[in-house]
């Protein structure tokens, strides 16, 4: 088994600049092939109304929107700000998968998922998910599915900055 490969083989670490590769898809924008889905990973403040406008359609009767905002405390300890890091191309691809699954599972019309990266202040929106559907139950279910799944599968990491240190959220048991 390769498990026994000598450690020396993996010791030849080199540093390289990957910023080119991982930053190229910071903003995918509207998908031309699939007008039902708008996925964006942005370093600028999220446009909630833009997400709502994207999903609104005359054959939809209900829109559900989830906005995840930066809270001022975690377990009673004051948080100064958050920092989000993303594996950008994979994060965008995983968000797109979630939107496609939601459309298939719940029969919803359109979905916008916008996520921030970089430094966020208290109260700012980290994520906006908007879903439109002919009837409201599907919109609620799909929106909840999107945020629940996003928090499990999308490669984005949140560091909480406290007065006395920093913690990567959920990293340790």
């Amino acid at each position, binding site marked *: 088994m*390769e498990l026994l490969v000598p450690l020396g083989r993996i010791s030849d*670490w080199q540093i390289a600049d*990957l910023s080119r590769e991982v930053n190229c898809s910071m903003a995918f924008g509207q998908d031309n092939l699939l007008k039902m889905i708008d996925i964006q990973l942005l370093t600028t403040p999220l446009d909630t109304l833009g997400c709502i406008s994207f999903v609104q359609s005359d054959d939809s009767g209900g829109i559900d929107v989830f906005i995840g905002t930066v809270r001022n405390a975690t377990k009673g300890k004051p948080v100064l700000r958050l920092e989000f*890091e993303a594996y950008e191309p*994979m994060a965008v*691809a995983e968000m797109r998968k979630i939107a496609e699954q939601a459309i298939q599972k719940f029969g919803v019309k359109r979905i916008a998922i916008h996520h921030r990266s970089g430094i966020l202040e208290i109260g700012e929106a980290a994520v906006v998910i908007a879903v439109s559907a002919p009837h409201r139950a599907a919109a609620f279910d799909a929106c909840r599915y999107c945020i629940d799944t996003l928090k499990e599968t999308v*490669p984005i990491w949140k560091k909480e900055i406290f007065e006395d240190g920093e913690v990567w959220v959920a*990293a340790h048991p």
Partner: protein
Amino acid sequence: MKISLLSFGIAKEITGQRFLEVEIPASASVKALRAMLVERFPRLSSLSSVRLAVNGEYATEDLTLKENDEVAIIPPVSGG
């Protein structure tokens, strides 16, 4: 063979670099790479979970790696 290794979040702090080029045995599996990584960076074992993604997709343990694959160490995600 050579692969690219990306580390994010707490994993970047453990490996020390966001990007590394790594020489591993030809046809190594994801499982084998995981074992190598844990041995080289024991603090990875302290994390709640470590998934490995190959070329932007979560990989199963039995996947065979190829030359120039991009492997990402995915510690517990916390977006949203």
